């Protein structure tokens, strides 16, 4: 038979499973390694950014609440002035 047996084996039989790490590091499907453990610097920066956002939100809320109350008070004072 002229068909090479190796090719037939590769096409017809299920492929051999290489160890995961070797497979991932092949030149054709190179990906970042993700089983090195958590990257603590990135985690710290991410959580810091989230904390900063929440702080900013509360600050903006408080500032605008104060501004609203100030404007309401100014409006009320103007009303009483006109009445007087």
């Amino acid at each position, binding site marked *: 038979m002229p068909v090479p047996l190796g090719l037939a084996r590769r096409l017809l039989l299920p492929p051999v499973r290489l160890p995961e790490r070797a497979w991932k590091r092949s030149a054709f499907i190179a990906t970042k390694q993700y089983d090195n453990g958590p990257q603590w610097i990135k985690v710290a920066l991410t959580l810091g*950014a*989230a904390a900063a956002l929440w702080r900013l939100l509360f600050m903006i*809320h408080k500032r605008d609440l104060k501004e609203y109350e100030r404007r309401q008070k100014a409006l009320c004072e103007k009303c009483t002035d006109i009445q007087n």
Partner: protein
Amino acid sequence: MSVLPDESRSLPPPNIVNHNSLLFGGIGWAAVVLNNVGYHRPALGSGVHRQILGLSIGWFIGYYATRRENYYYACRDRALFQYIKHHPEDFQLKEKKKLGEVLDPFHPVR
């Protein structure tokens, strides 16, 4: 282009917990979870710090969305009430009639 005009500060700022914040926070969180799914990582258990950041960014955007929404509806209501004030002839109260006056007199034939 400002996100919020100065006039909108005359309105009370919305609660920190509001419907738009929940919605956009959920979208941000779901985006991170979807990213995990795309990279064949455990969807909910991995990258909790990124999920928190996604939620926070969405919450922030949602807060501003609620403020813009309040401002838009406040402007619309102001225009509406000003129109009603300036055109009282279009908004007369109809005198109420009792149903007995409206219907024909009823003479039962038994």
